[in-house]
Every structure is written in structure tokens, then in C-alpha cells.
């Protein structure tokens, strides 16, 4: 190979040269264009205005309550704004416990379904199944709530009782009264975080599945074929190629689902029986969530009680916001192809 010689590029000084001057590049903007841009910009500004109004209003009204409560807002369990003792400790704990149960249900289901859709089925069946998963995302949450309340609750109680009987030595699964005596009647197992978590978990599976499926199908074909060429089975290929490349999608999809699960209101509100105390026993009746608290108390609230609810809503919003932004950052980073070689 001969190396190619290149001359050094010299930049001519346009002022010194006698040749043609560079043309001024400016376009004359027509009146219609100006009008269009003004219209589009004002629509953007209006949207921004609405969104910021929601945020600011929430923040301003919440600050009334937060000033009174102070840092104990995060540690108090009761909710009685009339007597100035209120806090989100119990409802936030309930929200998180329902979301954790939901994730235990949804993560295996969504990873399995996503791999089924991206790796196992082909052609017509695949597009039909993808449509069905999308359809599931469109089913209203109150319909899931009805199903959970009128069917699932009765069906799950024996399972919950079985778990608490044989795994009751793990504190989370125990169902006991304050003295530590185990409950056995069905009533102690209704309306629990466990049942609400299962329903919410099923509701968030579609969004998790679609994000994971997209990430899995982006795994590079070269590496896939390489794994097969080395004699790997399909599972071997998935384990060494698809899952490592789709890791960002798994984490990001899970977190987006988590954000949805924490904000879910109506299905949770229909199933749980609200209490204002931290209940570690997820199988035991009685839990709460921030959104259920708002739906429960908004009607009876005074102006101050309303700002206390705003404060609870703000805490929930900040939490879901944090989760969503982290998730979309992870998904976007995994999408950029930074991990792909060749």
C-alpha cells in the first residue's frame, strides 16, 4: 500500500482575496411563516404555562401545610390535619409496599413475555400478541379494580393463608395481632397490600413488556449469530447476548412500571381497607397509599386539610418524577448504541 500524500489545507483570507465574496446567506421569512412560528410558540408557551401552573400551585399550597408540619411530615403516621398532627410515613410506606409486591409480580411476567415476543414467536402470531399486550395497557384501571375486588380477592386468600402458615417465620409474611398471635380466619387476609399489589402488578406489565421487548430486539444480529455459530442454544444466546445488551431496557422498563404502580389510584382504593399505621405484614388486611389517601379525604378536607393533601400529592409526584427521569435516562443511554460493538 502506498501512502497518500495530502497537501496542507490553506484558508484564504476572504478580505484579502480579489475573488467573489461569500454571499450573505439570509432567507426572507414570509408572513405566513412568521405567523406559524408565533402560533406554534404560543401553543408551546400555553402548554408550559398549564404544566408550570399545576406544579407551582401544588408547591405553593403544599408549603402551607409543610411549614406547619416541618420535617415530622415524613415521619408522622397519623393523618389528622385538624389537630396539626399529620404525616406521610404510613401512606408512603403503604405505597412502596404495594409497589414492591407489584414489581415481584410484574418483573418475571414482563421479562418472560418480552423474551417470548422478541425471541421465540415469529410472524403473524408475534404481531397479534404485541397488539394484545398493547390492548391490555388500554384497559381502564377501574375494570382491573372490579376484577381484583370481585374475583381475585376470594381466589387469592387461600394462597395468602398458606404462605402465612408455612412462611410465617419470615416477619413480612406473618399475619398476627399485636400480641403476636397468628390469625387464621379469612377476614384477616382481605384488602391487603398483597392483593392490591397483584392487581397493580398486572396493570403495569404491558408498559414494562413493550419497553423491554424494544430493547431486546435491538441486540445486534452479529453477536446473536456469533453465539449460534459457536453452538449455543437459544437460551445460551439469550443469556450471553440479549440480556446483557437489553439490561438498560430491563432496568428502565421496570422503573417506568414502578412509577405507574406508585401513582395508581382507583384499583388500590377499591381493594384496600385504609389504615394510618405502618403495617409490615403485607398479607394482613389494611394498608394505604398516597393516592388512595387523596381520593379518600379530599371531600371532607378544610382549606388546611386540602393543602396537607397537596403536600402528600407533591411528595408522590416528586417520587414518581425522580423514578421516571432516571428510567428514561437509562433507556435513552441503552438506546444510543454505546454498548454495541461492530
Amino acid at each position, binding site marked *: 500500500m502506498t501512502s497518500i500524500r495530502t497537501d496542507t489545507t490553506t484558508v484564504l483570507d476572504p478580505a484579502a482575496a480579489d475573488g467573489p465574496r461569500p454571499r450573505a446567506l439570509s432567507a426572507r*421569512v414570509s408572513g405566513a411563516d412568521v405567523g406559524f412560528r408565533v402560533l406554534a410558540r404560543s401553543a*408551546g408557551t400555553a402548554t408550559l404555562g398549564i404544566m408550570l*401552573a*399545576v406544579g407551582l400551585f*401544588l408547591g405553593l399550597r403544599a408549603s402551607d401545610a409543610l411549614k406547619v408540619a416541618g420535617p415530622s411530615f415524613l415521619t408522622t403516621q397519623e393523618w389528622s390535619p385538624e389537630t396539626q398532627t399529620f404525616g406521610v410515613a404510613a401512606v408512603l410506606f403503604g405505597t412502596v409496599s404495594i409497589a414492591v409486591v407489584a414489581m415481584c409480580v410484574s418483573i418475571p411476567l414482563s421479562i418472560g413475555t418480552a423474551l417470548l415476543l422478541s425471541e421465540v414467536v415469529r410472524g403473524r402470531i408475534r404481531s397479534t400478541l404485541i397488539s394484545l399486550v398493547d390492548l391490555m395497557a388500554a384497559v381502564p384501571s377501574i375494570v*382491573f379494580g372490579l376484577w381484583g375486588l370481585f374475583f381475585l380477592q376470594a381466589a387469592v386468600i387461600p394462597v395468602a393463608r398458606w404462605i402465612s402458615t408455612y412462611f410465617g417465620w419470615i416477619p413480612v409474611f406473618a399475619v398476627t395481632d399485636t400480641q403476636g398471635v397468628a390469625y387464621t380466619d379469612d377476614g384477616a387476609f382481605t384488602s391487603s397490600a398483597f392483593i392490591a399489589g397483584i392487581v397493580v402488578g398486572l396493570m403495569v406489565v404491558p408498559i414494562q413488556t413493550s419497553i423491554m421487548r424494544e430493547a431486546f430486539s435491538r441486540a445486534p444480529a452479529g453477536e446473536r449469530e456469533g453465539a449460534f455459530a459457536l453452538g449455543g442454544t437459544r437460551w445460551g444466546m439469550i443469556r450471553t447476548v440479549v440480556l446483557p445488551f437489553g439490561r438498560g431496557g430491563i432496568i428502565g422498563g421496570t422503573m417506568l412500571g414502578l412509577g405507574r404502580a406508585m401513582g395508581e389510584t382507583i384499583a388500590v382504593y377499591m381493594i384496600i381497607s385504609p389504615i394510618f399505621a405502618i403495617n409490615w405484614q403485607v398479607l394482613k388486611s389494611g394498608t394505604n397509599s398516597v393516592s388512595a389517601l387523596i381520593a379518600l379525604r379530599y371531600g371532607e378536607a378544610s382549606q388546611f386539610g386540602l393543602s396537607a393533601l397537596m403536600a402528600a400529592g407533591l411528595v408522590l409526584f416528586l417520587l414518581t418524577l425522580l423514578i421516571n427521569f432516571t428510567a428514561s435516562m437509562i433507556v435513552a443511554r441503552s438506546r444510543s448504541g454505546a454498548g454495541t460493538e461492530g
Partner: protein
Amino acid sequence: MSTVETTRRADASDPVDDVVAPGTDAVPDDALPDVAVPRTSIPDPGDTPIGDRRGVHGLTFDDAFNLVGAGAAAASAATLLFGWIAPLTGVVGWLAVTFVLFIGVYVLLTSLRADRQEVADRVATVLFISAGILLLGALLFVVVFTLIRGSTALMHLNFFTQTMEKAGPLDPLSVGGVAHAIVGTLIQIAIALAITIPLGLLTAVFLNEVGGRFARFVRTVVDAMTALPSVVAGLFIYAAVIQVFTHERNGFAASLAITVMMLPIVIRSADVVLRLVPGNLREASYALGATHVQTVWGVVLPTARSGLVTALILGTARGIGETSPVLLTSGVTAAMNVNPFDGPMISLPLAIFDLVKSPEPAMIARGFGTAAVLLLLVLGLFVTARALAGRAPGELSRRQLARATAASRRDLVRIAAHASATDPRESRR
């Protein structure tokens, strides 16, 4: 012997053409040494019998036996456990135990014939398929459960034509209906769409076609607002509109709450659709001398039309089905109310929520009937969206393609006629 290979680039704008992959003919012919290469020929099979074509799809007998056998063994063992040996009850528990046993027996059966790698592969595949079956089974169950429990109420025609004004909780299903809730939902979603469609689409166009630092800021805020829990949107409208201005719950406030919830969702999905419009279409439009507004109106929006409609319909489905913003703002009523600015106006999700709170079986049946109506409405919207979607931006349906071909043929005739009628050097402006 040099041939000219024309390789057409695979381009997003012409997905119809077959693509000749670059690299199939990587070595130029004249680079090869001139050696006589014997022609490839298929040897004569002679008398050797050619067997049947081997099937590479489908299960072998062993696979099928393993699956069926493991299933039968697991089901029987679980039934035995539940009936006689262990104190277990419940359908869900039976299914769970059966599944665990099934996996165990399946591992055992496959490992009789296959090595560890293959067992892992088989079990993984079975696990993926069962995740899919479980998910779709749950979906089907939720839908069918609602429709069946709701069908008793749907059988009565008065369910669609009457309101609950004169029907007490103890009245049978032949009295009363949810016409007021259907009307309320339609009015509320119509108002919400009247705000969301222009504002949402213009904002999405602003984010994509105008751009700039301000647009990026708006996009960040819109993304943040998709995380807003819907009940907080309802609380906002309750505190900022109902308590300050109207002092009573009404349909318009409910529409505003739905709008606050729906707007970021619609903007975000429309933004994604507009981003998929190929940049070279815009550049071609500018190169032909079109202005900015002509490009957006004549090229970008028509190209993304089906995607935008899908985004709007799916947003509408979300807006119709969401209960919590309506719960705080719309108010419960048993009477028909067609004026969104005066007094409470119930909607379908809220009617379900209200009806199933009652202990009376007739009211619960009405609740399920309402849920079935809502579900059918959402399913209808979803199917419409699917029928319109499924096409990438710029991909035309058969009729659109025929229309475009006819138009360009007319243009060709016109241009040819024009060229022959006038002096070829003289151009029209």
C-alpha cells in the same frame, strides 16, 4: 466479462424494493486470476432413493411426550396434594402448585435424553411461553369476566336509554340505566379533546419543527408532567377551579382534569411520531422552494397523519377510562345533565365506582354492565387506532398509492403538453 451491478441503497423511503445487500459481490471480477473454474453441477443421484423432506418446525415425538407427560403428572400430583394429602384449597393455589410440579417433572423428563445446555434451553422456552400465557390469560379473564358479569344488565334495553333518577337500589334491572353516564362521558371527553387536539398537536409541532432552547425546556417539562399521578391532576382542578371559581363540581371541571392528565401523554406520543418523519422529505420540500409553513402543512403533517391519529385515539382511550381525576371533580348524580357548566355530571368510570359500592346485587350488576359498556368503548377505540396505524410515516395505503400515481401521471401529461406547446428554452417563471 465485467458486469455492471446496480445496488440500490436500502432507504427508509422505499421499503418496497428488494435490497441487494452490498458485499454479496464484493470481489470485482477482474481481480480474480483467470483460472478455468469448473461449473457447479448437481451429481446424478442414480438409484439412491430420496427420502421425505425433513420437518424443521414443530415438535418431535419426544418433545411432545415430555410436555404432555409433565403436564399430566403435575396436574394429577397437585390434585392428589389438594384433595387428600396436604391442607390446601383454592384454584389459584392449585394452578401454582401444578406449575411448579410441571417444571420439575419437565426438567426430569428432558434430562433423560438431553444434556444440561439443552435442558436449560427447553425449560427457559417453557417459562417464556407460560409467562405469555399467564399474561394473556389474565387479560382475557379480566375482559371476559367483566363482559359476562355485565351481560345481565346489558340484556335490558332500558339500560342504555334510562337514567338512575327514578330507580332505587332495590329496583330490578328492568328499571333504570346509565344513559346519563354515557352522555356525561361523551360530553366530557369532547370538551377535553377540543382543548387537547389543537393545543397538543401545535405543541408537538412546535417541539419538532420550530425547535430551539425554549422547545427543549418545554419538552423536559412535558416529560416531567407525564409522571403526574392522575389523582393529583384531579386534586389540582378541585383546589384551583372548583374551590376558587365554580364552588360546585361540574362536567367542565372534570373535562379540565382529564385535559391536564391527557395533554402530556398526547404531546409526548405525537412528538415521537413527528420525530419519525424522515428528514430528507423536509429537505426535499425546502429544496423545491416551499416555505416553512408549507412544509409543515403539506409534507410533515400528511406524512405523520396515521401516527398522529393513533396517538390521539390512544390518548382518548386513556382519558375515557381514567377514574381518579373525575372522582374529585365531576360529582355523582343520578339524573341526566347535559350542561357541563351547571351541577354534577357523572361519567362511566365514576358510575361504575359509585354503583359497585352498594351491597345490592342489582346495583353491582349495573356496575358491571357499565364497566362492560366502558370496556367495549375502549376496545372500539383501540381497534380503530390499530386499523389506522400499522403504517410507518410516509408509507401509503393501496388507494393512496394509486391516487398518487394517477396524480403524477396527470402531471407528466400536463408537463409534456406544456413543453411541446411552448419554446423549450422559455421557462414558466
